[in-house]
């Protein structure tokens, strides 16, 4: 990697101040950023490590759901008794991200701010009627992801927490890339009264809601309701691991499997 200045602020204010440096970058768990630096694909002037800021950490039960600090690691979310009780599907998602090493380093805030199209968390953020809390405002989860590796965040904005709404029922299933363990397709299904949200990650340039699947499940909230419901392959991702057509097929298959994990 190229040389950079390393900083480890103790407060959010210090972090925000440090981020004013030209080409400064925030460091969460580093699961994307560090490999990028090692391959010399990025050259930040400063790396601002958020790991020493207590306000960014932890899981809190709040009215109607959960608030999870941005610097909470996937393994902590996966193993949290509170998350398991309030939104078990979210604990399941976090507990199956990547591999053990990734889960013990990677963070919620880092994952959503990076907005990798194949990351797991974006599916939960879109499906669970969330609010992304930053150092200056609250962004509805539905508006947070704007494209491939693109979000609504300003360059100097810091995600501090995400508020998740407790659904009546939810489930998540993914088809893992055998090599990278990222989601080739991940589908999060959540039911709030009569409303059903089906958020799909991995398949497209950015997380999206699958209207046809939502309509089918709103009418009949059973896996069988998805039989024969096809997802359009147009605009989906294609690479050496999976064509757009295969991904489209997997969206329906994974949605059915998510229905099989409802809690």
């Amino acid at each position, binding site marked *: 990697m*190229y*040389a950079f200045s390393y900083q480890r602020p103790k407060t959010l204010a210090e972090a925000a101040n440090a981020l004013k440096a030209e080409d400064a970058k925030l460091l969460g768990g580093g699961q994307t950023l560090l490999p990028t630096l090692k*391959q*010399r694909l990025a050259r930040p002037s400063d790396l601002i490590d958020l790991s020493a800021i207590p306000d960014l950490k932890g899981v809190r039960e709040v009215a109607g759901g959960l608030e999870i600090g941005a610097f909470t690691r996937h393994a902590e979310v996966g193993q949290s008794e509170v998350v398991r009780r309030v939104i078990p599907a979210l604990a399941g998602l976090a507990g199956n991200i990547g591999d053990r090493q990734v889960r013990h380093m990677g963070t919620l805030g880092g994952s959503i701010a990076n907005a990798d199209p194949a990351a797991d968390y974006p599916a939960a953020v879109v499906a669970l009627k969330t609010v992304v809390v930053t150092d200056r405002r609250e962004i509805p989860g539905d508006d947070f992801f704007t494209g491939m590796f693109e979000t609504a965040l300003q360059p100097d904005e810091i995600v501090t927490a995400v508020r998740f709404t407790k659904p009546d029922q939810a489930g998540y299933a993914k*088809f893992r890339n*055998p*090599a*990278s363990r990222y989601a080739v397709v991940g589908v999060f299904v959540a039911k709030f009264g009569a409303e059903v949200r089906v958020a799909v990650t991995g398949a497209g340039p950015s997380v999206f809601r699958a209207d046809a699947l939502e309509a089918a499940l709103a009418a009949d909230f059973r896996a069988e309701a998805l039989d024969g419901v096809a997802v359009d392959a147009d605009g989906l991702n294609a690479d*050496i*691991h*999976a*064509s757009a057509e*295969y991904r489209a*097929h*997997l969206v329906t*298959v994974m949605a059915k499997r998510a229905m099989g994990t409802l809690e």
Partner: protein
Amino acid sequence: MANPNGIGASVRRLEDQRFLTGRGRYTDDFKRPDMTHAVHVRSPYAHALVKGIDATEALAAPGVVAVLTGADMEADKVGSLPCGWQIHSKDGSPMKEPGHFPLARGRVRYVGDAVAVVIAETREQARDAAELVMVDYEELPAVASSTRAVEGAAALVHDDAPGNVCFDWHLGDKAAVDAAFARAEHVARIDLVNNRLVPNAMEPRAALGEYDASNGEYTLTTTSQNPHVIRLLMGAFVLGIPEHKLRVVAPDVGGGFGSKIFHYGEEAVVTWAARKIGRPVKWTADRSESFLTDAHGRDHVSHAEMAMDKDGRFLALRVSTLANLGAYLSTFAPSIPTYLYATLLAGQYKTPAIYAEVKAVFTNTAPVDAYRGAGRPEACYLIERLVDIAAGVAGLDRTEIRRRNFVPAEAMPYQTPVALQYDTGDFAKNLDIALPLVDYDGFAARKAASRATGKLRGIGFATYIEACGIAPSNVAGALGARAGLYESAEVRFHPTGSVTVFTGSHSHGQGHETTFAQLVAERFGVPIENVEIVHGDTAKIPFGMGTYGSRSLAVGGSALVKAMDKVERKARKIAAHMLEAAESDIEVKEGRFTVAGTDKSLGIGDIALQAYVPHNFPLDELEPGLDEQAFYDPKNFTYPNGCHVCEVEIDPDTGVTKVVAFAAVDDFGRIINPLVVEGQVHGGLVQGIGQALYENCVYDESGQLLTGSYMDYCMPRAEDVPSFTVRTHEDQPCTHNPLGVKGCGEAGTIGASAAVMNAVVDALSAYGVTHLDMPATPEKVWRVIQAARPAPALAAE
């Protein structure tokens, strides 16, 4: 009393303590005073002219000591990396052998080809400066696949290799095969691809060059499976350094799988540069460099046909293979798709006539050479896929067609029509042992149970035989090898009875420090902890051809036995002298030398002490010392063989294949350490399963490597494989080496891919699938199911 750590004991590996606690000493761990670091500037293009190299900015960068190029090497008369095996084409002409320089001279031929080396005080400084070296490339058309390389319009990788052909070789009796096909009742046919693989040793390649101006001696520390071979090739052909001025050390090496047999350009670069700048130079590959520049494996495209009589008996086999050699000839590249491949096409079957043609071609990709199994997995995969298809054509059960065509045990030794003579093997016995291990009779019920849950289940067989113990030098020489393939050993008893063994074999994960010590413990009754195995240093070892081709025990172990024979003869003389008896009256058992019919005896420890304290030796007849050396050149190859059975379950909704059971029955001859053998088999099976289901090295048409990291190149994980059932039997020992051993290092890799794919095709047979190329990725499996839906057999139920 037999030694508890002798032959047949599952002694835990003595070397593992140091490996598991991070105390191994690998090339990159070596640090020298005043050491510099090298980083290579590598071509981003698959094929380009190098019109100029401007190092001005790089030379001015912090910490930079030197920037060296191919022109500097040329000025110093550095030679081309030599090829160790020469093949002649059908027409008698020698293979095309284009120059292969450590740093490119005017033209680059694959992504990763080195054009310059930057040497700096630190590795990061060298990396920074490497980005400042301005190379003026003029991109040329490239060709990456072997099938495109032989098309008329394809770009030429080397101007002096028309049609990109290195050689067009054949083996066998074409007329006899044609005649057999003319009278065949049934013919089975297959077109298949043996997918290209990246070796992925855990330790990346590294090299540290040193030069001592006071005595003119060079030292190269390198990640090699055969340091003496590197000394010979680099010293004699590339740098012009005589053996006595060049020491090559291969310390702990973290896996090779063949990829560290070869002499690579970086070794020559650091050795040459160390003298040029007067300081030690170290280079260590990062993982991306490993993907780009380690010699790859496999990459065959083949067509094969089997002629049968009405009863499914094999009459003749016809094979045509296109082998991708990459951009340059790696050290042993020409031997892999020829004498290590086509000579194995008889497999376990008494096919009376075989004819194989192999066209080997250059492409703008990394060089291709031996990778675990090296030619033999390609042969096994082709034969065993074809035999499954033949079973369908002849209407026979897949076990029955194999039984019907096996070379029977009583026909041994058996001369195949493709040059080899098998010494021992009982192939039917392997199958007999294997079938109950997988409950073959219960398969139909398991298949039905899978179907009830919407899954497809299949079972597949692979029988294999390999030629190991490479090799009788006279045979290898006649077939084009430019080296002998013997092994050396020296056994040195010290005055207090401890032993140092110097072996020309090299351990890079195989466990020689344990198994070789067991041989000494067994022979002389010494405690195993008193035996040290030294390997990997040309300054210590008499000579060595190294470790590959499952040869260490069969060849290196046999050399050790010969050296121990000599030690015993000497010790007997000493014992006779000390016990005042005739030499012929001394009986020897497990290191105890006894005067026959008396209780007068001496242990080897007493004899060793006397050997070094010879106060009253009859010096005219008896020299002091107990230190003997031997070279062993094998009489024949050894022929490990076995039967692998794989059971898979496929999820038709996703196309995911899961290996649910795997049994391997192997005949490795006599077993020295069952635990080490089982470990070797496990590792081999995982690599074979990896090729069948996960691993695939992909270049795009322009020659860019698309699978250049673990994000895209899929290595098998522990969770991807089942708990293996592994069995060996020892009643068919090798007949021509003193230990009766055959070798076990590659067997798992050789049998597994075919067994897995035969199981996958079996599971998909209801959809009319008769073949699928590796790897059987989820999308590939899903697509064949989609293409056939609804499956007739399933729809009928």
